[in-house]
């Protein structure tokens, strides 16, 4: 880049005047030392206000409850008291929360592998030689990233809805059976499909970017040794992009366990999605539907901890595996 050559020119010029530079730096040393703290001030204040404080408050609330005296009428009849871990034990034995967690685990078991598998496949295909129409297909596959989850769920929701879906129209015309996609087992596929559709493109770009950063010489050597494109993909490309695969896995796990907008949007279209379908929906329902912010806070903390344990657990396993491979 032209910028780089210009900079080296400046560096050479600067080193010629090094003694003066040093004295100058010393004179302004105080402001140089203070500057990074001043620059980071807004970020730190926002972090304290909108991350640390809410988390602390959620933990505080999760240890509290409202105690009702008598009939709960009159002032002073309801008071907030410490309750230890009782909100946590109640949440963990709440079958609805446990069922929601199981539903989301099942959903995640479909979404994460299929989404990342397709993202990897598309990235490898984009990186193949002599492949055509790449700028069009890359943009088309990436496009759902720009579409809000709510609208994605709306669009697919209508495509699942027998009265307006073109698929049902064709099935109807052909006299074929029409499965109900918005109930039972198919509902999982229907919901997973929305997430897969929305997430594949972004992950494809992340993987493709790291594929392109592999130096060409690596392939040249393999090709001279007679490796087929498939062998190159399996033996060279996939291992070399493993770190970005681990990263996309990590973030996909976090995002999947937080699923909220898509099932919430499908609710008006089907009776099969309850208000507590995912753990997050249950938290919302308890906090605002049932006005029990204390147990909602405890559940939110549990979800956060579970998410961190799962995602970091995955990271540890992935790292241990890659170390093993290195040792081999």
């Amino acid at each position, binding site marked *: 880049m032209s910028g780089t050559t210009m900079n080296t020119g400046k560096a050479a010029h600067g080193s010629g005047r090094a003694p003066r530079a040093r004295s100058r730096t010393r004179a302004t040393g105080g402001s140089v030392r203070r500057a990074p703290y001043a620059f980071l001030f807004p970020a730190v204040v926002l972090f304290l206000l909108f991350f640390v*404080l809410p*988390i602390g*408050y959620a933990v505080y609330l999760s240890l509290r409850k409202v105690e009702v005296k008598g009939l709960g009428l009159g002032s002073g009849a309801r008071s907030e008291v410490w309750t230890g871990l009782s909100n946590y034990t109640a949440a963990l034995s709440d079958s609805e929360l446990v069922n929601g967690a199981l539903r989301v685990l099942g959903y995640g078991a479909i979404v994460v592998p299929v989404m990342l598998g397709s993202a990897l496949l*598309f990235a490898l295909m984009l990186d193949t030689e002599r492949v055509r*129409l790449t700028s069009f*297909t890359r943009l088309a596959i990436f496009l759902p990233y720009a579409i809000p*989850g709510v609208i994605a769920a709306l669009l697919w929701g209508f495509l699942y809805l027998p009265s307006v879906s073109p698929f049902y129209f064709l099935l109807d015309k052909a006299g074929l059976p029409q499965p109900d996609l918005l109930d039972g087992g198919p509902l999982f596929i229907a919901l997973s499909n929305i997430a897969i*559709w929305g997430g594949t493109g972004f992950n494809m770009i992340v993987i493709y970017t790291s594929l392109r950063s592999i130096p060409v010489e690596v392939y040249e050597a393999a090709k001279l040794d*007679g490796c*087929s494109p498939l062998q190159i993909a399996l033996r060279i490309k996939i291992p070399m992009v493993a770190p970005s695969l681990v990263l996309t896995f990590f973030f996909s796990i976090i995002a999947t366990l937080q699923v909220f907008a898509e099932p919430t949007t499908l609710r008006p279209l089907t009776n099969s999605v309850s208000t507590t379908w995912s753990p997050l929906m249950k938290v919302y329902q308890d906090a605002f539907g049932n006005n029990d912010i204390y147990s909602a806070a405890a559940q939110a903390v549990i979800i956060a901890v579970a998410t961190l344990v799962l995602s970091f657990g995955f990271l540890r396993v992935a790292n241990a595996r890659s170390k093993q491979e290195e040792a081999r």
Partner: protein
Amino acid sequence: MSSLAAQNSAREAAPAAGAAPGTTQGPPPRRRVAFVPTLVLLLGAVYCLLPVAWVVMAATKSGKELFSTLTLLPGTGFADNLADLTAYRDGIYWQWMGNSALYAGLGALLSTAVSAVSGYALAVYRFRGRETVFNILLAGVLMPPVILAIPQYLLLAKADLTDSYASVLLPLVLSPYGVYLGRIYATAAVPADVVEAGRMDGAGEWRIFARIGLPMMVPGLVTIFLFQFVAIWNNFLLPYIMLSDDEKFPMTLGLFTLLAQGNSQPALYTLVITGSLLAIVPLIALFLVIQRFWSLDLLSGAVKS
């Protein structure tokens, strides 16, 4: 699903495609198109474009056509749908659109500014606690939005700030991922000797950042802006929790409430469908325009060396 089908077909076909150059020892013909990968990518593109194509067609249907004709063929009611949507509750749809633009535009701008100045500080200066600050900020990425959003709501309620524009804007100004990208771009784009040269010329630290560092970081900052713009434009949980006045709703929340009402009045479906189409046009247009001079790869923190 087509993506599954695509995977299978690729697995079966790829060895065959690979065998061809291996058996014929001579130089492979240069111009040949790699057929299978192209096909797989086209299938992926069709899958990704299908709902978009559907909504484009469905938005042209009148209420009657929507339920009676194949929705992948154009109808005749687009102008009427548009007029109905505009007339609905005195044009509240366009209010939602404007709100989304405000939340996403202003929010992304503030967020980019914070990310730029923080990323620059973390990249250019060596100071005590640098890695600690960076790691703690980055840990914010891992915080599930729900553990933040509900206490944020309760705390903002104490400050009497819920159900306001600020309640949706402020919690999203600090983006841990934005700070992370800001540091990566600043490290790559702002060489230490340029900063040093600025100091030699007697410029203050802020001036060096604003006049020298910031312009060098522009391509990266465009990326952070876009990333945040999309994140806020697509956000649902935070406005869903914070807002009750539908005059302040962003697009996502507005369409959701419209659909929820459509449950009892299917006539509203045409409005939801037309509204969905119009809601996705701005971002698609943004990406189509911007990709001419900006690379998608930047979004994952890729920096050309």
